[in-house]
């Protein structure tokens, strides 16, 4: 017997906030639009910074590329906020959806990778002192970022097809 989150989903779905999310007819489409806007900002800005770490756009100082990253974080925030809204509104379509768990796994990898970079290298990056860091480390972080965000999008897109979410 595999433990499931059915009980939690049942409880969450019955809360007034969950009901409110389902009742407002414009909220879900608006949330989807903002979820995709956030996705674009994240892919564009963080992808650009990753490519810089990989050695492209060398004429752009690394600190300059980094100064755009708050926009990528804002995009992530927008996608996370709307994503949580979807989950609270219809938890039952996620808790038994294998695509959802894959998406969460890749979100954790992407998030841990980003937090590690921030913790270990953000100060060096702002000082343009990154030349002291082994290029292989930076390239590994960039590749992990690109690959894990790719799979976050892939499994997000698979939610309605592998599982049953809309």
């Amino acid at each position: 017997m595999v433990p499931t989150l059915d009980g939690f989903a049942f409880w969450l779905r019955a809360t007034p906030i969950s009901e409110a999310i389902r009742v407002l007819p414009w909220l879900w489409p608006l949330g989807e639009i903002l979820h995709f806007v956030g996705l674009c900002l994240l892919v564009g800005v963080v992808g650009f910074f990753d490519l810089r770490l990989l050695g492209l756009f060398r004429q752009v100082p690394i600190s300059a590329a980094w100064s755009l990253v708050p926009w990528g974080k804002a995009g992530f925030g927008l996608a996370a906020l709307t994503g949580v809204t979807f989950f609270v509104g219809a938890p039952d379509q996620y808790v038994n959806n294998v695509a959802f768990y894959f998406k969460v796994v890749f979100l954790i990898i992407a998030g841990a990778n980003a937090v590690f970079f921030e913790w270990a290298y953000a100060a060096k990056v702002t000082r343009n002192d990154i030349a002291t860091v082994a290029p292989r480390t930076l390239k590994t972080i960039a590749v992990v970022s690109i690959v894990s965000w790719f799979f976050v999008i892939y499994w997000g897109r698979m939610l309605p097809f592998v599982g049953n979410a809309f």
Partner: protein
Amino acid sequence: MMEVLAALEGSGFGTWLRESGSIWAYPAVLTLHTMGMGVLVGASAVIDLRLIGFAPQIPLAPLGRLFPIMWTGFWVNAITGVALFVADATTKGTTTVFMAKLAIIVVAVIVLFDIKRRVYGANATAVVTPGARALAAASLALWFLAIATGRYMAYV
């Protein structure tokens, strides 16, 4: 017109994409369409934000190399978009919101070309002109509308 749309939708390819249930059919094409969007709109947003005045430390010249990346995203989405249209031609070909989405993308791509001409063309200046700045803001607004109409198509 309706016969053409029905023929497209009923074609072998349209039927396979829509009904085969294969993960390589509709899901894969839709995923590529999402990735293409992220690359095209995301790369465009980087240039737009810079032109509007954010991250002024980023030199403009090297950002010109984002254009081939954007065209890649554009062509991925043009091809996957045609495929997705064929699969649901009678619905998509008759809804206003789809026509609006197409029109918005046409204008967005024209704006993209104009930004390229003004900022990276032969007569380009090193400083960002108010015109280029306005185009960048228009570009962001148009991509937002393209996403909004595209997403909204799932609800009509």
